[in-house]
């Protein structure tokens, strides 16, 4: 795997004392990384640092942000039940979306991998199609479907039900997010399926495992690394999603990202907005790293 590194070849994979090549051997590699690294510093690290600095500022409604070093903003976000609700809602939605994506995306990828070619490319395109349409357009699409006079309620009306309030609900946010995030789950699971030796399923069958047991004990565990990376992407993107909660959640059903937007552009309270943004980032990191650690450790040895 690390064959491009100039590190001395170690005969035993498990031995920890790998002899490293001298530092100057790595110089070409550093130089090759430099453009991307500079771009990363300029566009990610510097703005992030500026946001961090901003969180310590004081806000005065009359004169705007005032340079300071104090933790008032953190105290406000962390102690207010208003923000607790927003964060809980954000992560609740992200968790639900991830769960639904696993439940829908894994079988979808499995079925897809079993299809023969004309259909397989067709359905792969159908799954990837949402990525080709702007999130805003998709959000409006869902909005048209779900509003009080929308197609869904019209259909309910035909059988004498409703109309129900579907738009501006958590339900609307979740369903639209699942639609958007599904490709991010299907693709890594699909990749894991490509690596799976189809004969392992036959091997399990030959050992008298039922098809259901084979799926549960043999196929699913081999897909776990794919599901894991898919979940991380879906969770991270859902927790920080802005357009869909903004358009389908309305003004009252706020999530962290829309709350940040409102602080920055509505109340013009930049320090508070920056604090929420930073806390969202930290919370997201904690959740994802914990999840990664717990599951990944179990599978690195066997599945790499």
């Amino acid at each position, binding site marked *: 795997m690390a064959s491009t590194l100039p590190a001395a070849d170690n005969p035993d994979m498990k031995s920890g004392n790998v002899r490293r090549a001298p530092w100057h051997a790595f110089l070409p590699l550093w130089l090759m990384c430099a453009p991307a690294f500079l771009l990363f510093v300029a566009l990610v690290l510097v703005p992030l640092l500026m946001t961090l600095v901003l969180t310590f500022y004081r806000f005065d409604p009359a004169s705007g942000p005032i340079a300071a070093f104090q933790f008032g903003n953190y105290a406000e976000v962390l102690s207010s039940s208003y923000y607790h609700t927003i964060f809980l809602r954000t992560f609740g939605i992200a968790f639900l979306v991830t769960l639904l994506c696993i439940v829908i995306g894994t079988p979808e990828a499995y079925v897809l991998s079993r299809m023969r070619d004309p259909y397989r490319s067709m359905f792969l395109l159908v799954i990837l199609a949402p990525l080709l349409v702007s999130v805003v357009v998709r959000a409006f699409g869902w909005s048209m479907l779900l509003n009080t006079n929308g197609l869904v309620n019209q259909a309910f009306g035909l059988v004498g039900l409703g109309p129900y309030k579907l738009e501006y609900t958590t339900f609307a946010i979740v369903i639209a997010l699942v639609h958007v995030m599904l490709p991010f789950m299907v693709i890594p699971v699909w990749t894991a399926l490509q690596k799976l*030796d189809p*004969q392992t399923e036959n091997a399990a*069958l030959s*050992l*008298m*495992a039922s098809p259901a047991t084979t799926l549960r004990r043999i196929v699913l565990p081999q897909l*776990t690394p794919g599901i894991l990376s898919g979940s991380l992407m879906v969770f991270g993107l859902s927790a920080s999603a802005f357009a869909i909660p903004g358009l389908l959640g309305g003004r009252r059903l706020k999530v962290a990202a829309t709350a940040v937007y409102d602080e920055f552009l509505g109340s013009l309270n930049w320090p508070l907005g920056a604090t929420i943004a930073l806390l969202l980032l930290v919370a997201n990191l904690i959740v994802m790293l914990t999840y990664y650690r717990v599951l990944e450790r179990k599978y690195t040895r*066997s*599945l790499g």
Partner: protein
Amino acid sequence: MSFLTLSDVTKSFGDLQAVADVNLSVEKGEFVSLLGPSGCGKTTTLQMIAGFVETTHGRITLDGHDITHMKPNKRGLGIVFQSYALFPHMSVADNVGFGLEMRNIDKAERKGRIREALSLVRLDALAHRFPRELSGGQRQRVALARAIVIAPPVLLLDEPMSNLDAKLREDMQFELRGIQRKIGTTTIMVTHDQSEALSISDRVVVMEAGRITQIDTPYEAYERPENRFVSQFIGKANMLPGTVVARDGDAIRIDLGHDLAETGHTAQLPARERVVGVGDAVTLCIRPEKLRLCAPNAGRVPATVTSRFFLGSQWLYRLDSRLGEVLVCCQNEGTEPLPEGATVGVDWNSEAIRFIQRDAHHG
């Protein structure tokens, strides 16, 4: 009735007959190899026995029971796959124990049987490793242990050695045979490697284009090939065209060409060839190791060495003679071999000549 029988087993994919009318009876404890070039239907035949491929026509019975349409997970056969198909997320011990677990065998007994199977393939020390931490040969042994731990009625091996390097393959062949003898499991192995099939099986089934061409012991298949295909697929062979000059019962005398110093050669006719008569064009075969090189004007046919190949224990000469190109195999006696371009005589015993087939008449 035999332990495992295939009667008129056929598999068609659309218009293509992958396997056609295969009839095979395997006795209990026997080691049978399905041998043939790729695409001859041997793997499809194995897959039908395993149940992964549905038969189009015909019957498969195991121990008196019809298993033709039984689901693969009900047959309980032990299978070693070409890719080994180990479960990558399970340790060696869990891989081997999976089949026992599916049979609801309790944990204590499972443990003992896993240990037993692993010690049979000499992998006791690696029970806690994962498949990706093993070498190719070790993975192969795990696959074998996983298949035999369930004490299957029949063990199916699908090209089990094809992913091993030559030296390891040879070792594994002997080991596989040893293990099979020890546990006495009826075994069917698919292979395209004729030397592997010859060295370890009780009987070989030679297949060509979806059909069985010969079922025999390795020795008989080598010594008495039934047609041109078998004679050339198993070992090396010199094919000689000739004309029948006399027939006496099952013995025929054949003229190998008009300008030869000595013309007559006798060969035994196999029982199936009753129609051969005087004047018929026939094909004969002689193995390279049954030809002898002698002094230039001795022997039956003079020849010139065109090239030679050193095989370690033997020298293989390619000669140009009036019989066409002839291969001769000589023991390496430790003396200087013949140089390329040397003139020699070629001799053989009449009994070494084999009748292969009667050719169509020309005109």
